[in-house]
């Protein structure tokens, strides 16, 4: 096998391994941009994975499966939003509880469908397809153009999120809510509405990310299928400095990590897997140090991240 082909197959797998994380990072960024840190990503992903999978089995309809998965993530996000926005509860604790809650709910729902396989109509809809000519581009052709539509959708979502945040009025309003909700409130932005909408949208994406694993990638229900991917996403939100375009890079770099370990085993190079597993977190810490030192404006976390907004306490 020639080296170009090997690289392109490697990237193809890496992109698949980064897709659920990409959904989760973008969902997390949208949520954090309105000033809410949501540690419940893992829980929302698992709820999406379980509900998406059982809906796919029950309805044999791929679109319904995706929507149901997103809705499941959104329900998780709604619980979170009610507690943190309306009741102004602690975001960290609420997020953690949402993860524990989501893991349990997913396990419960998954019990009834364990052993099932995704119906053919759904697996065919999400089967990888190759775009002629484009998929023959060396190195990146297979990674981008010989994939399931769901994989490509993740990239589209990330790009759209970027343009929404940076180029639209709503995006500007949303960011101002995350930076300084009091000022946003004074300028006539409905802070509560903005928080709710974006937290729910973020939950929707997290649910979709989970469903990618169960419905598209594995096509079978496995308990706790995300195996901690939600926590990686929380770290990679910082790594991508709250920028959805960089999230694409972060997610796929992560997708490459394990694959790189397998490649190196093939070459006879031994690296403890613990070392590789540590890398995303080390990279996140390095980025954190870097952005804190450089104080460059567009790389900073949203200023009011983690703080509940009390209009009366201005």
């Amino acid at each position: 096998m020639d080296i170009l082909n090997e690289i392109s197959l490697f990237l193809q797998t890496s992109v698949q391994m980064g897709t659920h994380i990409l959904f989760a990072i973008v969902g997390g960024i949208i949520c954090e941009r309105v000033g809410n840190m949501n540690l419940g990503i893992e829980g929302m992903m698992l709820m999406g994975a379980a509900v998406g999978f059982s809906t796919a089995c029950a309805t044999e309809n791929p679109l319904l499966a995706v929507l149901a998965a997103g809705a499941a993530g959104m329900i998780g996000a709604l619980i979170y939003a009610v507690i943190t926005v309306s009741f102004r509860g602690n975001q960290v604790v609420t997020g953690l509880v949402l993860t524990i809650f989501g893991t349990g709910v997913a396990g419960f729902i998954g019990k009834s469908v364990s052993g099932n396989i995704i119906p053919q109509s759904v697996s065919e809809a999400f089967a990888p397809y190759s775009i002629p000519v484009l998929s023959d581009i060396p190195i990146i052709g297979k990674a981008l153009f010989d994939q399931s539509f769901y994989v490509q959708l993740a990239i589209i979502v990330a790009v759209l999120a970027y343009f929404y945040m940076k180029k639209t009025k709503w995006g500007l309003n949303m960011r101002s809510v995350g930076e300084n909700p009091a000022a946003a409130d004074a300028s006539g932005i409905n802070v509560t509405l903005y928080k709710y909408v974006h937290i729910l949208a973020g939950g929707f994406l997290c649910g979709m990310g989970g469903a990618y694993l169960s419905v598209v990638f594995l096509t079978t229900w496995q308990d706790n299928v995300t195996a901690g991917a939600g926590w990686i996403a929380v770290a990679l939100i910082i790594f991508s400095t709250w920028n959805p375009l960089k999230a694409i890079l972060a997610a796929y770099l992560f997708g490459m990590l394990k694959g790189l370990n397998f490649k190196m085993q093939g070459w006879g190079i031994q690296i403890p897997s613990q070392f590789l597993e540590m890398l995303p977190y080390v990279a996140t810490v390095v980025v954190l140090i870097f952005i804190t030192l450089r104080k460059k404006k567009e790389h900073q976390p949203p200023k009011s991240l983690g703080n509940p907004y009390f209009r009366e306490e201005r």
Partner: protein
Amino acid sequence: MKKKLLAALLAATCLFTGCASGSGSSTDSQNAPAGDTNNAAEGNTVKAGFVYIGKIDDGGYTQAHDAGRKAVEAMGVETAYIEDVPETVSDTCEAIRTLIEEGCNLIYTNSFGFMDGTVEMAKEYPDVKFAHCSGYQRSDNMSTYFGKVYQARYLSGIVAGMKTQANHIGYVAAKGIPEVIRGINAFTLGVQSVNPDATVEVVFTDTWYDPAVEKQAALELLNKGVDVIAQHQDTTAPQIAAQEKGAFCIGYNFPTADAAPEAYLTAACFNWPTFYTDDVQRAIDGTWSSRAYWEGLAANMTYLDDLSALCAEGTKEKVDAARDAIISGEFEPFTGPLYDQDGNLKVEDGVKMTDDEIWNMSWFVKGVVGTIPA
């Protein structure tokens, strides 16, 4: 004011979650179906408790064990179980205590990592009988038990060796411990017994359970051109990868033909009811004593699943011949001459490796491509 409110909320939430997770394990065991009541009438006081590493419907390791528990229930013996127990000493002890408090006097712990906790509890409760799966520590009231699944793996190697066209077989392995190495070696010896040109390439995932990573490992091997995938992992993800790439697969633990019907050849399986019913019967008869149980094909403790229609022609004859030879005792997979990866003679011609040597195997036989992680 705001801070106080937050602190109160935080404390309340912690309390709430603390309670929730604390009660989790006991509800699990309460969910366990109550056993047949007629054993009380027979004067039988044995109640068997099972500590499981996974969920009883995981489609793999724990599900295979739970089939054993159900067989015990069918004998009219009461059972209880706790799922999803983490492999730490404190969690193991807590699970065992819960079962003993519920009246269990015969405790099975089904994963290697439960060893230290089981040893500790065996000391604390000398009147309770313990058995720990896949470990090596025993005492007066603590047995060890496991299945010689390497014999079934040898047979599955024959199936793979007959099937491969590329003479290149992939093996997704969890960790570089003797149990896994032994399986890889037996599988490779089986492959080479029918196809001396074929090699088995191994990738270690360093996890027993992570479906996505297991699939990624299989894809890496498939991208290299292997056309059969075998596995020592707890999920069917490697088999799904094989099916997706038009290759074939061999399962583990449990027959999994449903997971990848277009790729499934067979699986190397445990038949846990054999051990559990035997052991519980000894407890009922009063003949239970601490022992090291390690049986294979002959005792029907391990077996090869029925061959699927996808297997190469002539496979059945070869598998049957090898199975008969192993069961009758005239053949053992780990019999010399055995060479290591570099071609050094490790076991002399005609010499059978002892159970101890097989149990502690830490080198790859010739034909395996890959390195054991440090």
